[in-house]
């Protein structure tokens, strides 16, 4: 009862909704991430009641993940890295005039994903935390490789081009200081490159800036980019068809959320891959598949529950957002860890109820806002294009208040434009950039741990399973190609 009185107060609910709206706005702007949103709101919470302050931040966190998908689906510009995988089928649906349905799928999947994440957090948090602790460097390396294997499913027609794109991302990810020895690599004397290439700036360029360059062509051809919006709604039968995908992807998101260092971007790509693997109609993926959109959307919000597992049960933040939340809890006089459930049980369960409510509000805000969100598609391309370019500049600059990130964004924009022209998929490049550092540092740490003995990857059960899945995923398209390949007709793998 005490728990319920904590949450169901007018002020608490209002702050939760306010947090969601702020998060939604921040998430929709390219370059502004969940971390930035939560960190910016943190000082405001200092003078609040603990539950109010924490739920405001939770609202910003959940809202920003959902908000990032809106621009990903509508204008091919993921607001946050968590939505990079949603672009693939979300924007394809928009191009078909099905933006309304795409946003409905996104909203439902996000809400269900979030609820599943929180339920798992409530039911099996201690057990999950224990399992997450088994993740050492070899397991994290195997997980990163498994995430990378998704590249093979993002190849959009040409396996060779998709792999080249992914490998280019991995090569670019090695620019800067070597994570193990500190030696500089591929910096060519440029001090700005010591910290590496910002993948968020590159993502803004590859998706948003290149899209603005493409919009100009539509204007010249008098096929203006303003899209037609058919108010085709999600049918009950379609929802039932994607429901299992949503549940599975939510579980994947929650599981990955528990693992330190693995973020929502990885979770959404892995979920996309798994949805495609288990789909009977693999060809629809990349061409406006509802499953292809539902999977990353459920995974990136499912992750939010998972990320809270090590935070609340062990006091270990798994990523930057939960690190800020750890700070918020500490400021409020709470000490996350096993004792938190004993000493402040009512507050913890109030937090769980608040998280469930946040997902319910996402559903309400999302559904009531779809008509408003889709208005952006009615804006003619020649008005949208300058706005996208300016927001790309501000978003890239705001990452570190650094002009160099703007240059990276511009270069990526030009690169992305030509990649799209020559049918090179851009998503694998982003995936390589995201997972490259995680893969390299954990592979080399594992080798150091095992003193050079490579059998370390074959003696740990979780590692073996993840590596086997990665190899299977990477090789599966080759099996299909072998069956179909006719060099004189298409000649593309």
């Amino acid at each position, binding site marked *: 009862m005490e728990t319920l009185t904590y949450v169901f107060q007018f002020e608490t609910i209002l702050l939760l909704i306010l947090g969601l709206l702020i998060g939604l706005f921040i998430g929709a702007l390219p370059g502004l991430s969940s971390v930035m949103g939560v960190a910016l709101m943190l000082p405001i919470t200092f003078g609040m009641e603990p539950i109010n302050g924490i739920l405001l931040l939770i609202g910003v966190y959940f809202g920003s993940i959902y908000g990032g998908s809106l621009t990903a689906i509508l204008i091919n510009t993921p607001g946050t890295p968590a939505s990079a995988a949603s672009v693939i089928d979300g924007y394809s649906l928009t191009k078909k005039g099905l933006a309304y349905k795409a946003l409905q799928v996104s909203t439902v999947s996000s809400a269900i994903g979030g609820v599943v994440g929180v339920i798992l957090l409530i039911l099996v948090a201690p057990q999950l935390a224990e399992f997450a602790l088994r993740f050492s460097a070899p397991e994290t390396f195997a997980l990163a490789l498994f995430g990378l294997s998704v590249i093979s499913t993002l190849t959009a027609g040409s396996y*060779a081009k998709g792999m080249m794109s992914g490998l280019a991302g991995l090569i670019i990810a090695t620019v800067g200081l070597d994570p193990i020895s500190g*030696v500089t690599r591929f910096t060519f004397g440029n001090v700005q490159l010591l910290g590496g290439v910002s993948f968020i700036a590159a993502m803004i360029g590859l998706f948003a*800036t290149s899209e603005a360059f493409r919009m100009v062509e539509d204007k010249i051809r008098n096929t203006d980019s303003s899209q037609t919006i058919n108010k085709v709604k999600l049918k009950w039968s379609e929802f039932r068809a994607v429901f299992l995908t949503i549940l599975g992807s939510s579980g994947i998101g929650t599981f990955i959320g528990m693992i330190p260092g693995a973020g929502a971007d990885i979770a959404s790509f892995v979920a996309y891959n798994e949805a495609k693997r288990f789909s009977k109609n693999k060809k629809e993926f990349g061409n406006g598949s509802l499953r292809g959109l539902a999977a990353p959307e459920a995974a990136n919000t499912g992750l939010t529950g998972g990320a809270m597992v090590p935070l609340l049960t062990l006091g270990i933040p798994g990523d930057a957002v939960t690190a800020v939340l750890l700070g918020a809890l500490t400021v409020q006089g709470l000490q996350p860890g096993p004792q938190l459930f004993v000493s402040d049980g009512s507050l913890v369960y109030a937090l769980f109820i608040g998280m469930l409510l946040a997902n319910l509000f996402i559903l309400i805000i999302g559904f009531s806002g779809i008509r408003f969100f889709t208005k952006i598609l009615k804006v003619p391309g020649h008005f949208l*294009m*300058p706005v996208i370019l300016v927001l790309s500049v*501000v978003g890239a*600059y705001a990452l570190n208040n650094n002009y160099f990130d*703007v240059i990276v964004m511009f270069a990526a924009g030009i690169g992305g434009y030509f990649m799209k022209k*020559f049918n090179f998929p851009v998503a694998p490049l982003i995936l390589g950039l995201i997972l490259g550092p995680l893969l390299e540092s954990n592979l080399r740490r594992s080798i150091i741990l095992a003193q050079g003995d490579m059998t370390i990857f074959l003696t740990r059960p979780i590692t073996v399973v993840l590596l086997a899945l990665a190899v299977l995923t990477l090789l599966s398209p080759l099996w299909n190609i072998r069956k179909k390949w006719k060099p004189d007709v298409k000649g*593309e793998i």
Partner: protein
Amino acid sequence: MARADRLISIVAIALALALLAVTFSFPSPDIVRTSPGFLPRIYIGLFIIFAVVLFMQARSRNKEADSKVTFDRFSFVLMIVFGIYLLSMIVLGFYLSTLLLIAVLLWLSRVRAWWVIASMPLIVLLFVYIVFSELLNVNLPLGLLFS
């Protein structure tokens, strides 16, 4: 597309070989078991293999069934204008250069209503100022002229 793919694979292979050569100049401290060039070399090696595959496929592709890549001159004009805008930001600062960029882009997009060309940059800049500079404390560059 086949011709373009052949050209792309040749350029990619040349670039990859140059990068591969660079990896051999990385110092290799004795304390680490794997050298800093360990993974970059694997990535580059695989990249070259797939570039060769792409070249072979492009060669064997049926010319009649092949598609052509078309470009619009205006896209390149936009890239140049955007590049000049980014350079001008160093001197003029974000606000003045953005004002000019939006006005120029609207004019290039054949928008001729003067009130649109005048008001749209101001609305966008006002939004950016309130959200980014005031609320989020992002210090957008003022440029040599105003700093």
